[in-house]
């Protein structure tokens, strides 16, 4: 029997986790109400699970809550699992650019599902709603929304125009911003760019930045280091613009344009304006 923790009934990553849960055994689902308080939520889940295996989504919250569960039960937790075969499983490392095959030495399995490793389950299950005991719990007391100035957020954008070392400078991003504006896209960047101080970390796409899953990811002057790919491989389509014909990014791209982005990006912007004008 498996208890699958859902963030909500229609949350995509949660439904993927349900697929994993169903593969482990008969699954039942829970959601938790009230302010987010990971330790308290975990205690409620532990009580509800009654010794069953427990599975959650590989989201920030899913990993956090399951880690609390694991600590409370003093059991091993396999985070971001992509496949299970009996007591052997595969999980991701390095944000997904490397896989680990491991053995879980435990009768009781605690796991989170790696995002997009499983298809979302179609099962219509009535999730039990848990009400955790929040006395003295560490809980969210407030929420702050950043002032995006009306710009679309990186995590939600349908299109991301992203720049890497090839852009050359902070000023160089102006042409990317122009294109992004036309496409209603968010502007992203690689870690090289944030380390150089050209863009804020909130623009960073990658293993330690934001993981995006837009319809289209346009990578300009980005070489394709593994930790960057970890952040954009969720994109449905990837267009890479790079002067190096053999840049690693092209191995992950659906579309390619070879050449200097400083010429190509403005040319695309101009062509788009023409198309819209017409």
């Amino acid at each position: 029997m498996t208890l699958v923790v859902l963030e909500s009934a229609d949350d995509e990553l949660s439904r993927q986790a349900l697929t994993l849960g169903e593969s482990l055994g008969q699954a039942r689902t829970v959601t938790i109400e009230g302010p987010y308080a990971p330790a308290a939520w975990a205690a409620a889940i532990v009580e509800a699970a009654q010794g069953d295996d427990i599975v959650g989504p590989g989201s920030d919250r899913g990993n956090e809550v399951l880690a609390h569960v694991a600590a409370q039960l003093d059991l091993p937790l396999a985070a971001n699992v992509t496949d299970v075969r009996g007591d052997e499983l595969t999980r991701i490392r390095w944000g997904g650019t490397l896989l680990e095959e491991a053995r879980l030495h435990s009768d009781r399995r605690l796991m989170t599902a790696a995002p997009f490793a499983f298809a979302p389950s179609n099962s219509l299950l009535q999730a039990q709603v848990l009400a955790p005991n929040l006395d003295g719990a560490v809980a969210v007391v407030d929420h702050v929304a950043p002032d995006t100035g009306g710009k679309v957020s990186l995590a939600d954008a349908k299109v991301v125009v992203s720049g890497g070392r090839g852009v050359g400078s902070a000023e160089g991003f102006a042409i990317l911003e122009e294109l992004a504006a036309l496409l209603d896209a968010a502007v992203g960047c690689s870690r090289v760019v944030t380390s150089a101080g050209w863009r804020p970390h909130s623009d960073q796409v990658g293993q330690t930045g934001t993981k995006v899953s837009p319809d289209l990811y346009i990578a300009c002057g980005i070489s394709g280091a593994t930790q960057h790919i970890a952040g954009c491989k969720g994109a449905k389509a990837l267009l890479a613009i790079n002067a190096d014909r053999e840049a690693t990014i092209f191995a992950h791209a659906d579309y390619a344009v070879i050449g200097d982005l400083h010429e190509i990006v403005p040319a695309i912007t101009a062509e788009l304006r023409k198309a819209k004008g017409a």
Partner: protein
Amino acid sequence: MRILCCVKRVPITGGRMVLTADAQAIETKHLGFTISPHEECGVEEAVRIVEAGGGEVVVLTLGPEEAAEQIRDCMAIGADRGIHLVSSEEWDAQGTAAAIADAIRADSENTGPFDLIVMGNESADAGGYQVGIRVAYALGLPVVTGLKGLAVDGGRARCEQEAPGGRDVYDVALPAVVTVKEGLNLPRYPSVPAKLRAKSKPLDARAVDRPASQLEKLRLVVPEGSRKQAEILGEGREAAPRVVEVLQQLGVA
């Protein structure tokens, strides 16, 4: 304030993962090493807090002998002291957390308790997302994870956790464990004198034995890769019309 930061030695990879012949590790003969990006921000934050209000920053790592290099790097940006738990083996999250908790308890007995324990949200390599939380439980401390904002004042910490649509805010009493994410701050580069000073800061190293693994790594595998054959839309600015066509086909323009 006494702050302890945990860091982990990880390789700096390029564009391609290459494994050793026995598939037990990444081939590192041509690679340099660093600490996980989240941890860089953690150490930077700790140093800033102590620079502002006094105290001590201790850096702790569980890793091979060479990991002393990472401790020295942290000292070069301001950490005062280091603890090195030496083991050349790969430890799982439970074992790691237990060893860290033991070391913290032992150190606290000598020099007093820590006000804040800072870790990375997850390590760059194993990415287990759990060591910080387990250490908190072992020490009986509250824990907040995934921080992009942190402010300590009067024995309390105001924590901003990355969440959908913005940040969730927590307010916890110290001592506490926090795990942080890159973006919390922009870490400094070490200066030459700082690097030289780092050489002589105290570093307490001791060997530790790894317990049996509960989550036992069997082997590493480089994923198949998308095997994508990108369609070349063109070269230079001449490709623009074709690109716009594709944008329209994809429904984004």
